């Protein structure tokens, strides 16, 4: 296959993946609405006129049918998400093959976003069994879909060879770890938001999807585990491989470049999150808020900072993707 053919394949695979993610979302919507109907069917009018849930021991055919629907569509959604992620992976591989010479598919913002969203989807699939995360499906799929659209509409860039400064094996080590941590933190942000929403509902009846969201305690634990997984990887990416590479490419291992600053801010916020979980008065709600702040700084650094600051050496964010050619400014003469 020619490079151009690979490129076309990659673009088509992105579109196909988006379609399948969308189908997965639809399946989740059906699952969700069936869940609500099950809840309604299960509520009967109690003696005092108030609503009380029917005893689960009274099987009713319509309820059972609804429950079957929930299960079938839930499984279908997961299956579709898996399929979409596979096509997503194909898009990444084809993207790498379309470059001359072939390379890792993360050399510019478009590709970073493609890879980052893939990791989010993949993590969700891997962890959904272990942590019973299937309730998070609609959120994950919506998120991935939305970012894929952002990537295609705003960030698209033709495949080019890597700029010289990116051409290093550190590109593999540094970016893989950064994207892995980003994927994990993103999921952690979602579970933390779920925690906050569930907490706000207080004693409201647990119906629909809320009945499937784990207890507050469990949500807190899941969030912590995800963050505890992501934090050392982020540390490795931002404070070890990043500086080593920056030292090689730009002569200074830490230069307070805006990307570095925001990576540091993100790191400090997550360190604060880990502290908050062990500090009276901060665990639970405040810790979850910090986790969400962490996710925001993380994604701001990933995409947003490029639009606020132009002095970044992380030149992949701009078209001017060569080494810096900036002038040696104030030379005294005359």
């Amino acid at each position: 296959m020619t490079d151009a053919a690979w490129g076309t394949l990659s673009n088509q695979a992105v579109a196909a993946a988006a379609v399948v993610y969308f189908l997965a979302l639809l399946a989740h919507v059906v699952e969700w609405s069936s869940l609500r109907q099950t809840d309604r069917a299960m509520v009967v009018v109690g003696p005092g006129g108030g609503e009380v849930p029917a005893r689960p021991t009274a099987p009713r055919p319509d309820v059972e049918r609804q429950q079957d629907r929930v299960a079938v569509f839930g499984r279908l959604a997961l299956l579709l998400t898996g399929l979409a992620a596979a096509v997503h992976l194909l898009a990444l591989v084809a993207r790498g093959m379309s470059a001359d010479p072939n390379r890792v598919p993360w050399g510019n913002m478009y590709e970073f976003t493609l890879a980052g969203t893939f990791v989010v989807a993949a993590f969700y699939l891997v962890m959904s069994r272990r942590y019973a995360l299937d309730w998070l499906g609609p959120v994950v799929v919506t998120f991935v879909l939305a970012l894929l659209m952002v990537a295609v509409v705003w960030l698209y860039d033709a495949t080019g060879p890597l700029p010289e400064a990116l051409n290093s094996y550190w590109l593999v080590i540094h970016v893989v770890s950064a994207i892995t941590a980003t994927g994990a933190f993103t999921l952690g942000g979602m579970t933390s938001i779920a925690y906050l929403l569930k907490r706000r509902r207080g004693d409201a009846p647990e119906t629909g999807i809320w009945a499937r969201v784990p207890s507050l305690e469990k949500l807190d634990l899941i969030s912590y585990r995800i963050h505890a997984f992501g934090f050392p990887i982020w540390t490795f990416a931002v404070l070890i491989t990043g500086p080593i590479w920056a030292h090689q490419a730009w002569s200074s291992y830490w230069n307070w470049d805006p990307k570095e600053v925001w990576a540091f801010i993100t790191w400090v916020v997550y360190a604060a999150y880990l502290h908050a979980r062990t500090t009276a008065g901060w665990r639970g709600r405040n810790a979850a808020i910090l986790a969400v702040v962490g996710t925001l700084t993380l994604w701001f650094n990933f995409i947003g900072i490029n639009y606020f600051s132009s002095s970044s050496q992380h030149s992949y964010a701009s078209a001017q993707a060569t080494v810096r050619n900036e002038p040696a400014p104030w030379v005294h003469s005359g």
Partner: protein
Amino acid sequence: MTATETRPPRPAPERRSGELTLRELLRWTWRQLTSMRTALILLLVLALAAVPGSLVPQERVDSLKASQWKDAHETLTPIYEKLGIFNVYGSAWFAAIYLLLVVSLLGCIVPRTFVYARGLRAQPPAAPRNLSRLPSHAAYSTAEPADVVLERARRLLRRKRYRLRREPDGPAVSAERGYLRELGNLVFHLAVLVVLVGFATGTLFGFKGGVILVQGLPFANSLTQYDDFVPGTLFDVDGMDPFTFTVDDFDVEWLTSGPRAGMARGFSADLTYTEGPGEPEKSYDLRVNHPLTIDGTELFLIGHGYAPVITVRDGDGNVAASGPVPFLPTGPDLFSFGVVKAPFAEPSQIGLQGFFYPTFANVDGTPVNLGGNDVNPLVSLTVFTGDLNLGSGSSQSVYTLDTSRATELKGPDGKTLRLNLSPGETAELPDGLGSVTFDEVVSWQRIQISHTPGKNVALLGVVLALLGLMGSLFIRSRRVWVRVTEGSDGTLVEVAALDRSGGADTDAVLSGLVADLQEEHR
């Protein structure tokens, strides 16, 4: 009631009590400073304080951008300057935050280290009287005799690498594991300090400088040779390594097809260098991502461009300026801008400014640059005569021309005179002012030179921090108790677990343990 409180109150002299409250105040302040909550808030403040430096250009990061920003924001600049917004990461208030954090960290970690060291040989605490009070507990009854169950529990827990309590414990086993967790946490926090020390060493004693060096011209490592130079606060100029180097040859690999055609892909500079006077000459292939280390100083290739060699003759026919003049690229295609100054030209000073096209083409009357390779080089210059304002005392960049007191030369058609020259061509200036020759074009390289002591200390620090962090996050620290009570209808076995790390599912541990205890029986 403690004994002290039953003693008759003794009136304390007033001065003493004042001292006491001061001491108390200090102690209270210290306790506050070293509390978890303060550490948490300081961390958040640090994160917040780092923000402005990413939005406003920093003098030490990009001085050119910073000064442009200052020119564009006249009202904000003096305020920001007072607040140190142009040098956030070197400002006093930023330092105050992280120094407070360091003090807090020391105050927190040092006592904990002693506690940890003392507790290292301590035994797991005896079983609480009422195990069912613990959040995670279970019980079952069995026909087995009590000591059999206890013995099995001991074996099981030992196999799971728990430390067992040796002192008498009644009819119970007390066990604990995960001592390394706290060690990991301590190592992590201490390593943060190591990183800070390494980082500070580099900032204080190191330097960072850059030079645009025309190919073939030698560089000797001394202050005067640098174009820009940012020394650390305690940097010692006399300690600079006395090396010299020259770029003999420079190779660029150009992209000829694809969306980035005309731009460069690979660069390499052939360097000869000596480590000091009298040392043998060595050579090195300097590339991006492939720096050269000479003693403790490192050289990096970070950019390149073209330097047209231009000769200016004045009205008397004397050479008023000659040599390669680095033009600065305006983009990745190396379309560049530059100026030539001939201050000693007679009868009046001559200044040239304009563009350099590596691959010039005339497309329907519009001059364009087709790529960065010097396939068809051309300079396009306008000419100024008069006073170039070089004597005004304030220093002037060699890359800009002050035309405020000079006049622009016009062509015969009354429009701005533009000299378009290919290599080897000469243009005569009107009114007998002289001539301009574009002799040839050579390349220049931008070499970044830096000396960063302490960088290995910082690296060691972060690696230690990561290891400690993993220990701290992934080692489970928990206590387990098993108590047996013999009754008339068999033995009651109570099991309880307590997780000390706050991230574990003790229920799962507990049920696993109970299952194991029962399993072996069957």
